[in-house]
């Protein structure tokens, strides 16, 4: 039996299960990036603050997350952080989403900072001169311009986070990778299953890229 034939058999038998896993993967990535956006914006503001202490907090967050592997963060989130907060172990999905959010958030801090700092200083001055507060100027004038410039980096981070969800298989979340592992641990067709899994990741990422490009074009017009 050749590989292609075997592949199509595996595809036929396990696609619906893998699709469920893909749904979980997408859900995790989407949720995490949503939380990460909030974290990134919040810590991004701290990062460019004139207050030394606030800048230090943002720097510490960035340094810890970027300096350690996601896998370690995941294990800490599941076995240390959440149990310490709630006094008992929390479901793996929450732990996984938390670790991914914290991780992506740290990278988004730099994306937000870069986007905001790329806006001409005169924009802040013009806003302040009219009578807007720093916060209002950020909200009405700086961020709308900065976000437009951030879209490509943002999409990039989404793709990274989406693929990072595969690490969550280690704490037993039935996402796409773990679904694949479960299947090949039974039928031993490791290569076939992983090929299909890879193609599914590729399809999701490609679809996302197309949507993102469309959004970017729409925003460029306005």
């Amino acid at each position, binding site marked *: 039996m050749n590989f292609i034939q075997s592949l199509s058999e595996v595809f036929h038998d396990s696609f619906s299960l893998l699709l469920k896993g893909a749904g979980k993967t997408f859900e995790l990535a989407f949720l995490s990036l949503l939380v990460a956006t909030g974290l990134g914006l919040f810590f991004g503001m701290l990062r460019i603050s004139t207050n030394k202490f606030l800048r230090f907090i943002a720097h510490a967050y960035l340094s810890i997350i970027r300096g350690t592997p996601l896998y370690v963060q995941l294990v800490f989130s599941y076995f240390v952080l959440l149990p310490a907060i709630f006094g008992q172990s929390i479901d793996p999905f929450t732990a996984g989403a938390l670790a991914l959010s914290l991780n992506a958030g740290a990278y988004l801090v730099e994306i937000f900072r870069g986007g905001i700092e790329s806006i001409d200083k*005169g924009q802040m001055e*013009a806003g302040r001169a009219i009578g*807007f507060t720093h916060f*209002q100027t950020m909200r009405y004038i700086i961020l*709308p*311009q900065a976000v437009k410039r951030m879209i490509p980096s943002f999409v990039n981070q989404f793709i990274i986070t989406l693929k990072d969800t595969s690490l969550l298989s280690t704490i037993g979340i039935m996402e796409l990778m773990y679904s694949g592992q479960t299947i090949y641990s039974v039928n031993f067709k490791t290569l076939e299953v992983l090929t299909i899994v890879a193609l599914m990741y590729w399809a999701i990422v490609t679809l996302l890229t197309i949507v993102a490009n469309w959004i970017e074009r729409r925003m460029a017009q306005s």
Partner: protein
Amino acid sequence: MIEVKNLHKSFGSLEVLKGIDLTIPKQQVVCLIGSSGSGKSTLLRCLNLLEEPTSGDVIIEGKKINEPKANINEIRQTVGMVFQQFNLFPHKTVLENITLGLLKLKKVSKQEAEKKAIELLKKVGLEEKANAYPKSLSGGQQQRVAIARALAMNPHVMLFDEPTSALDPEMVGEVLQVMKDLAKEGMTMIIVTHEMGFAREVADRVLFLEKGVIIEDGAPKDVFEQPKHERTRAFLNKVL
């Protein structure tokens, strides 16, 4: 209505303003001249606290503005500013540039804000550009919109920071004309400029700054024709 008392401003170890004392009554049109680095832009920017004075007082309409309890955002609504680089908001149309402050700060209705914006655009001769984006406008047009944007807040005084320095020569006239009209209406104006012809014609008073100190202060005729200082004479000889 504007009082400056013993104003000092340093950037690090560099002292840019070295004790400025100045009183500008209502409706006066004042031109600040001087070579670059003399501190004229810094002085202007201290008047709405875009630069924080190192020491001294800035008092606008009886209120000291450079102290922690002053509400600077409220004060800035009464002090309009026009920048060398226009600084229009590129993601907003001409109309939205002008209405933003009215809508979000003065909380007027959209209809009322737009009515006011159109009025101001008529005044600067750009009514037909209401729905254009700044990038499609020439420099002179952008600066006229910037003036309209500042006027929308009904300021009691207008600050101009080299408003024509970034313009092509053929566009300088249209911006100066708008400023002349404004001066005629009795607006209090403080203008940092290199346009000596304009200063001579429109200003009530000319200040010459040199190394952070005002060394000439008088009617344009006096300052231009009988400067007290050798330094002023040398500067005028170069630019006139």
